[in-house]
């Protein structure tokens, strides 16, 4: 058996180094406090890691027991789904407006994240400009509504078709590239779209954006009320979930996974890789367009500020946090990332800091996300 020893020098050096890096930014006092804190944390972590092995064994035993108990309660999927649906449908009856607002936002992000999951998770193409499609969807609805007076339902097809076409347009050049180059080109695409929205004053209103967008209506009933909007978003979330699941299980979905796992091998097996990548891009963009139209309808206002690179990263974080390629994981990730900043209002300033650190930590310790699929890899 390996002999464990508490080595006091390394944590000290690490914390000294880190507080030295902090020194010019925060001054001597904060750096000293930081040094003491970090050293203490590192010591504790190292001390715990001495007992890591027995601890992990206990954990495994416990999780095994839980799994056994869970296995004895077998619930039919149909029952589970109907209970979940009734639960979701009943939310507006007792929830306050504040929670409904968050739920609507979470729903929009779930649609977005599911769309991005198609591109990144299923097909394995890193798209850093996904927010461009979201923006195109939102602006199309906003413009058609304010300029041409079209309602939500008649404008929605235009939004969807336009985002799909732009997905195609981006994909045709981008798919000749692979890996990080693809990521950079999509990032560039996102920035170009944002710059156009920001500078084409006569059409898009420039940085001021477009306001006075009418909320969607069903027959003559306006869905502007939050509880109605909740049902609208819920409907579309379920639709997205259903369609992406079905497509994932189809021949197209299997082709995407094959391309993700090994492009050369899959093309040798007769999969038209370029074609299927095109599908992935356009299919993902489609959902972004839907989410964009819903977003514009909810906010009744759009401006380029909502469609920055950070937004793309935020959606990507949802997909990665939940688990690339896992539909339920992605939903969980989107929900967590929308919910957490609301819960932690006081530390909102540190939200982005934590997001950045979280991405690094996630990549190092759990690249497959919280509930990622087993075979999912980030290969490009």
């Amino acid at each position, binding site marked *: 058996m390996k002999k464990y020893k508490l080595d006091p020098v390394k944590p000290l050096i690490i914390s000294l180094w880190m507080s030295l890096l902090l020194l010019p930014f925060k001054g001597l006092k904060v750096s000293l406090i930081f040094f003491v804190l970090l050293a203490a944390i590192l010591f504790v972590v190292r001390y715990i890691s001495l007992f890591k092995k027995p601890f992990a064994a206990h954990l495994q035993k416990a999780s095994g027991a839980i799994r056994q108990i869970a296995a004895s309660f077998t619930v039919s999927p149909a029952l589970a789904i109907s209970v979940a649906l009734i639960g979701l449908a009943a939310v507006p009856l007792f929830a306050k407006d504040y929670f409904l607002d968050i739920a609507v936002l979470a729903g929009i992000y779930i649609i977005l994240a599911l769309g991005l999951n198609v591109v990144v998770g299923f097909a394995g193409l890193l798209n850093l400009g996904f927010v461009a499609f979201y923006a195109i969807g939102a602006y199309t609805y906003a413009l058609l509504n304010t300029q041409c007076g079209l309602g939500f339902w008649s404008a929605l097809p235009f939004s969807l078709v336009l985002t799909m076409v732009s997905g195609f347009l981006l994909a045709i050049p981008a798919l000749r*590239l692979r890996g990080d*180059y693809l*990521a950079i080109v999509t990032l560039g695409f996102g920035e170009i779209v944002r710059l156009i929205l920001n500078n084409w004053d006569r059409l898009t209103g420039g940085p001021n954006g477009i306001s006075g967008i009418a909320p969607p209506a069903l027959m003559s009933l306006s869905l502007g009320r939050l509880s109605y909007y909740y049902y609208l978003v819920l409907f579309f979330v379920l639709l997205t979930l259903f369609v992406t699941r079905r497509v994932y299980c189809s021949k197209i979905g299997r082709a995407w996974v094959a391309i993700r796992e090994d492009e050369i091998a899959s093309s040798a097996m007769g999969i038209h890789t370029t074609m299927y990548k095109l599908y992935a891009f356009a299919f993902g963009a489609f959902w972004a367009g839907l989410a964009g139209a819903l977003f514009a309808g909810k906010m009744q206002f759009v401006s380029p500020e909502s469609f920055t690179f950070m937004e793309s990263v935020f959606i990507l974080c949802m997909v990665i946090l939940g688990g690339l390629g896992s539909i339920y994981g992605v939903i969980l990730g989107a929900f967590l990332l929308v919910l957490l900043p609301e819960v932690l209002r006081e530390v909102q300033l540190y939200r982005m800091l934590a997001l950045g650190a979280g991405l690094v930590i996630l*990549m190092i310790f759990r*690249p497959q996300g919280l509930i990622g699929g087993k075979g999912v890899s*980030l290969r*490009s």
Partner: protein
Amino acid sequence: MFLQQLINGVTVGSVYALIALGYSMVYGILELINFAHGEIYMLGAYLGIIFLGFFTASGLTEYSLPLALVLTFVLSIIFCSCYGFTVEKIAYKPLRNAPRLSPLISAIGVSIFLQNYVMLTQGATDKVFPNFFGTAGFEFSSIRMTYLQIFIILTSIVLMMALRFFVRKTRVGKAMRAVAQDKTMASLVGINIDTIISITFIIGSGLAAIAGLMVAMYYGLVNYYIGYVAGIKAFTAAVLGGIGSIRGAMFGGILLGLIESLGGSYISGEYKDAYAFVILIIILLVKPGGLFRKADIEKV
């Protein structure tokens, strides 16, 4: 007018080139787009302001301005190198054998972290870099070339020459080229890969620090988000010239600076930032290997 824009373009371009070198070297060795590199450049600018403020407060600037400036440069370079070194150790080293997209996402995480770290510690408002050079310079008929511009261009050229010499002639440079060609083989002949990668990050970060300081002096204003745009542009420059090649990064940077400044004044100033992206997309499509490098074929 044209010549004036030419001078401005070369000035900005040589700064891009300095940042691009860091991207290029890291990509050459790790095949990783180091997203955090732009933030190191931003850190350099901020560190410059902080140290200069410290020296002014302690009276050194009044005593001898050149000494204070030199010290500011040296300290900023050292600190930025430390930051680059630490970022590599924490965020990239554990992922060296991971699938290719993992380190890229990790790099985006580092970039977000550093941006917000600076925002939280230094505030979200613009910081002013004290102007020591003034607007003094040469003047021929209608063209102005400030001393600062000359300083920036000369410094960049000297640094690039030095780097080229370092990579081509020294022992460490040779080891760097070896690691870039084949990591396994290089380790078999006794090269410590970890050390070489660390050295690469330290040199790249040092160059980025100098670029950040010079930009802070040139524009006089610094903000926590300057690193992102500059980083993307420098990456474009590196791709333009052929990523992995030092000469390519130099020419790519200056070319990009020229395109931006000429396009900004003759086509449309509002879309100045978009030119870099458009060029990037075109270059990647037409000549993915860049202007100075042959495209390689993907092997199984």
